[in-house]
């Protein structure tokens, strides 16, 4: 059996055929059984398979985007559960971007942050306040709510405001080290949440615990965006930008500075890396992803209040990062996907299924332990199992390898060029 597969996987052609066959099968599965969550998950699973195949990078990206942006939404749209799937997809995208932001802080720069959700909150509130009547309660000028078209500007504004808060957090934090940082960031997250929940007096800025309702939905050339399937594309777009930025940064000068600071602060300084600037950049860039998604979240929910931004949410994002594999971009994306899909779909489905079979077969379960209540328990158990069996994360971090042959060749060429230059100089 394994020999058969080994042969199959050797050639690229076979891989392509097999992969397309898988996607077609999974797609057909979802098409024929439109309400089957498992068929939906299978289709998503193809992305993970794609990641492990040895196609070239561009082919992987293109097929990934085609599957997520065209095939999956199209097939799902044939089903009643279309919006459910797209809602899950949207949430996964939002949290992926957030987890990637936190990954910069925790995974790259090695700064443990337990209050990361604060930046999400800041982004969400910045749109919510100005895209609802709320702003008119304290702003002396302007006409509110702002029209839905402002949403696109607010994605940038949200990112900027969150980045600013990232720097605000960073300044006091830089003096403290290691796990002291954890508590300071936790405190910062709580301070932001409490402020948002209480700033309805003396000046009503956030409407306090009543939250901000009736947020204007985004407007795209006159089309009002309201359904999950539309938000899916916005989130997908931002997600692509975020992943591009992260991938590029990871191997840039700044990315190397982060990792150097993480691995050895003193040596990093001795190599001329300014600690303060580097750490602040990590906080600011990480926070900005969160802020962007906060804006989208506020627009999607059309309502924000402080209950969405608790300490538990911060730990959930941290769980995505650590579970996926710290510093590993594909790992973190997978981590976010697994946590969100588990919590919003799979566990809900499992508990529903359990209670429906118990009802169908007349098994009476005492209400104290009915399956609906078990979601967090099962989630907790799964976390323990994952952590124990994948200690390095679901997809452990690997450093990007350079092609040594190319370097060798280029180095030889450069040497030749130098030689020529010097001998040329001697000639003249």
């Amino acid at each position, binding site marked *: 059996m394994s020999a058969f597969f080994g042969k199959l996987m050797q050639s690229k052609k076979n891989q392509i055929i097999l992969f397309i066959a898988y996607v077609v099968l999974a797609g057909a599965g979802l098409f024929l059984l439109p309400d089957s969550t498992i068929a939906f998950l299978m289709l998503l699973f193809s992305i993970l398979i794609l990641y492990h195949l040895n196609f070239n990078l561009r082919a992987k990206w293109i097929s990934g985007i085609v599957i997520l942006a065209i095939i999956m939404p199209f097939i799902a749209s044939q089903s009643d559960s279309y919006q459910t799937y797209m809602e899950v997809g949207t949430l996964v995208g939002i949290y992926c971007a957030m987890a990637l932001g936190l990954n910069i802080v925790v995974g790259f720069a090695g700064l443990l942050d337990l209050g990361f959700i604060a930046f999400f909150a800041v982004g969400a509130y910045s749109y919510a306040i100005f895209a609802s009547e709320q702003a008119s309660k304290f702003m002396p000028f302007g006409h509110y709510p702002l029209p839905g078209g402002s949403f696109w500007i607010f994605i940038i504004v949200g990112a900027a405001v969150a980045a600013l808060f990232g720097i605000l957090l960073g300044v006091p934090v830089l003096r403290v080290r290691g796990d002291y940082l954890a508590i300071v960031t936790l405190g910062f997250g709580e301070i932001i949440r409490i402020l948002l929940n209480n700033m309805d007096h003396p000046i009503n800025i956030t409407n306090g615990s009543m939250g901000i309702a009736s947020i204007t939905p985004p407007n795209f050339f006159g089309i009002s965006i309201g359904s999950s399937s539309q938000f899916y594309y916005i989130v997908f777009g931002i997600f692509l930008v975020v992943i591009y930025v992260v991938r590029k940064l990871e191997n840039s000068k700044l990315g190397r*500075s982060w990792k150097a600071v*993480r*691995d050895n602060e003193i040596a990093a300084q001795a*190599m001329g890396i300014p600690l303060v600037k580097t750490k602040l950049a990590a906080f600011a860039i990480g926070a900005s992803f969160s802020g962007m998604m906060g804006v989208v979240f506020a627009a999607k929910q059309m309502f924000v209040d402080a209950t969405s931004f608790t300490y538990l949410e911060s730990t959930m994002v941290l769980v995505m990062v650590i579970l996926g594999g710290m510093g590993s971009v594909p790992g973190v994306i997978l981590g976010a996907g697994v946590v969100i899909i588990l919590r919003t779909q799979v566990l809900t489905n499992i508990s529903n299924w359990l209670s429906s079979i118990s009802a169908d077969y007349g098994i009476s379960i005492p209400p104290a332990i009915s399956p609906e209540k078990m979601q967090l328990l099962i989630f907790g158990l799964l976390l323990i199992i994952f952590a124990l069996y994948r200690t390095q994360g679901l997809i452990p971090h690997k450093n990007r390898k350079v092609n040594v042959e190319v370097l060798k060749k280029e180095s030889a060429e450069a040497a030749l060029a130098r030689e020529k230059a010097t001998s040329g100089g001697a000639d003249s």
Partner: protein
Amino acid sequence: MNILEVKNLTKNFGGLTATSDITMNVEKNSITAVIGPNGAGKTTFFNMVTAVYKPTSGDILLNGKSLVGLKPHQVSQFGITRTFQNIRLFNEMTVLENVLVGMHQNLKSHWIGTLLQLPHIRKIEEAAKVEAYDILKYVGLEDYVNENAGNLAYGAQRRLEIGRAMAAKPKILLLDEPAAGMNPKETDRLTSLIHDLRTKLDVTIILIEHDMKLVMKISDYIYVLDHGELIASGKPDEIRTNKRVIEAYLGKGAVAND
């Protein structure tokens, strides 16, 4: 011409005096050794030069400009780079990345340029990689380009640290016990590497070392510290016969019996 001048440098930790009143002059393009028994204050001296510690009093001048009060990364940007007694590599990064980090202060690429994929930034990054590869070849690590630095053997880690420091293109290179824990063969290789460095890269080297054979072989000038004080300085031959130095190394009895 003196590239580095140290004037009356003193460092107190609480009540403890780690170095007191050290004065040194380091000539450009020389190899200067700082020796002395354990606890003599050699590493403290290095730490003050690289601004890890702030001196209690005294001054450090690089080409006549004071370094006191700068941040460690600023000192590095002024052209002083070091290696560490207990190796401090970026263990989770590849060997090549370690060298690339060393090149940071000379690397004119900004992350915004990287994001925009500006062609000249890409060119700079590519060239940097080639240069880093050359450095690795120079320190004999070209076969470990993609290896994680933490996985290297001890001697190789030492050489990588030197390579990383070289990448910074320093004016002054501080080597803190570069030969510690090396076998004779590795030490020989290191000796010629250090020698080569000076001539090839036009760099001034200050090193702390316990291996006297190495010190005597390559240094132009030697300073001897004991209990935080400068007890002798001179050319290798002068130090070899200096009574106070022998006393410090072997104890008072050794000289008395002499």
